[in-house]
């Protein structure tokens, strides 16, 4: 379980997270949606302990970060590290040393090449492979489907469902609503740092329609496409 109570986060005078209260339970997949700048990544960084914040984040294991697999939106890779070495580095960091990395190369990545030469999608797949091999209890995946080919997205969606089956907590953000509706049990909507709405699977269709109406508004007419 992860419980977030009265979470506030400010950068200078700007309040980027305002009174967030959320609870994440084992064996469930949660989606966090919101426009760019809504506070999704900051929320993830707070949960990971990468940011200072006001309020509290409680978990049933301590420290939470040692059991958390964090996929950043844009993972960083050193210029001369191979794919295999990157995975080994992340696994070593969690004391997972006896892993046959070649055997676990689920996305068929060229693991002996430098990770910096990978395409955007390949980099993301490499980062996902590494955090999956860390055998974390909690997973935060910030935009995992972004830039990844359709075949790998299918694999990834199945992996998320498998993680749910394994009683893990998975928290995902995505700009592609269908990827969330396929995998999530709950979706939380953030806007300008505020928790606007939390919906269950049955209400996903309504939420999508609501978001669509709210997002589009009269912007298209205003743009006056010719």
């Amino acid at each position: 379980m992860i419980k977030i109570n009265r979470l506030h986060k400010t950068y200078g005078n700007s309040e980027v997270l305002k009174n967030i209260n959320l609870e994440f339970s084992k064996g469930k997949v949660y989606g966090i949606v919101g426009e760019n700048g809504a506070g999704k990544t900051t929320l993830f960084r707070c949960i990971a302990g990468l940011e200072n914040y006001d309020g509290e984040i409680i978990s049933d294991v301590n420290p939470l970060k040692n059991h958390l697999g964090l996929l950043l939106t844009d993972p960083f890779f050193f210029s001369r590290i191979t794919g295999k070495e990157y995975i080994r580095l992340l696994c070593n960091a969690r004391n997972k040393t006896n892993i046959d990395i070649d055997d676990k190369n689920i996305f068929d990545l060229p693991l002996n090449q430098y990770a910096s030469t990978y395409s955007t999608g390949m980099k993301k797949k490499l980062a996902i492979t590494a955090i999956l091999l860390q055998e974390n209890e909690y997973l935060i995946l910030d935009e995992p489907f972004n830039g990844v080919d359709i075949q790998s997205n299918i694999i990834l969606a199945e992996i998320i469902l498998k993680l749910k089956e394994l009683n893990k907590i998975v928290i995902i953000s995505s700009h592609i609503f269908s990827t969330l509706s396929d995998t999530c049990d709950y979706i939380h909507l953030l806007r300008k740092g505020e928790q606007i709405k939390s919906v269950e699977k049955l209400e996903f269709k309504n939420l999508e329609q609501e978001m669509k109406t709210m997002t589009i508004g009269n912007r298209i007419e205003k743009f006056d496409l010719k």
Partner: protein
Amino acid sequence: MKDYFYLQFVMTNRKIKEAGINPLLGFVLSFVAFVLLSEYIFQKTEFAKYLVILTCLSLQFKLSEKNRTDFLLSTFGDNIKKKIRIFENVIVSIPFVAVLIYKNAFIEATLLLVIAIIIASFSFYTNFNFSIPTPFSKRPFEFSVGFRKTFFIFPVAYILTVIAINMGNLNLGIFSMMLIFLTSFSYFAKPEQEYYVWVHAETPKTFLKNKISTATKNASLLVVPILIILLIFYPIEFELILLFFLIGLLFLWTIILAKYSAYPGEMNLPEGMLIAFSIYFPPLLLAILPFFYNKSIKKLNVFLNDKN
């Protein structure tokens, strides 16, 4: 095309400003530095003109990078892309051609200009799929990345050791050993992105212990061939050789601790000065090491311990 070059000019000015220098002053300083450096090279070596040509060509290869030329092609079309590339290469060549003409190397100057125009028609991949193997893949990071960046240093150091033995010069042998240590220090010069510290399920103490132990093993692996050769050929001086080996390790530990004592910032003047003092007076390391260690523990605590 005019807009493109204006934008390049604006971007160059921005870079100079970011370095804290007035752009005009930056251009003047670069010109003076270029003239003085060229003059120095021509005084020091007879191969100076080839160095000038090679430096100029290496800059032009960078401009011919595939992604860059693809961007120019898709933005401006083939004809303008070719003109831009030729113009860029000619602009880059001008100072180098001028130096060659000033030094009466007219043939080389003409040749350089012709090659510059020819190179403008080609694109080159700078990212190769080949990865240099290293003995550090089991615990990858500083040494596997660093080794690949500085791999050319190691044959030089080993050859110097052989020369040192042939010439009976122990100092040169010790220098080659310290060259490898110095190279290893450079692997810890820059702080890594915070994710790579955060990801460790370790206390700051264990984190530092593992970093130091891995670095000690890896640096020793690189130094041991030289150490053994020196001990075989200079058995009487074994105390001196081992002392330098130990000093090398002590400095390696100091650099690692200094790095994390400033983390996530870069090592700066205070850390640099303390290290510099201890180069003059190595026993100072015994005081500096615990100081950096305690500071590192505090800094790492932010990233490694949960704040919940």
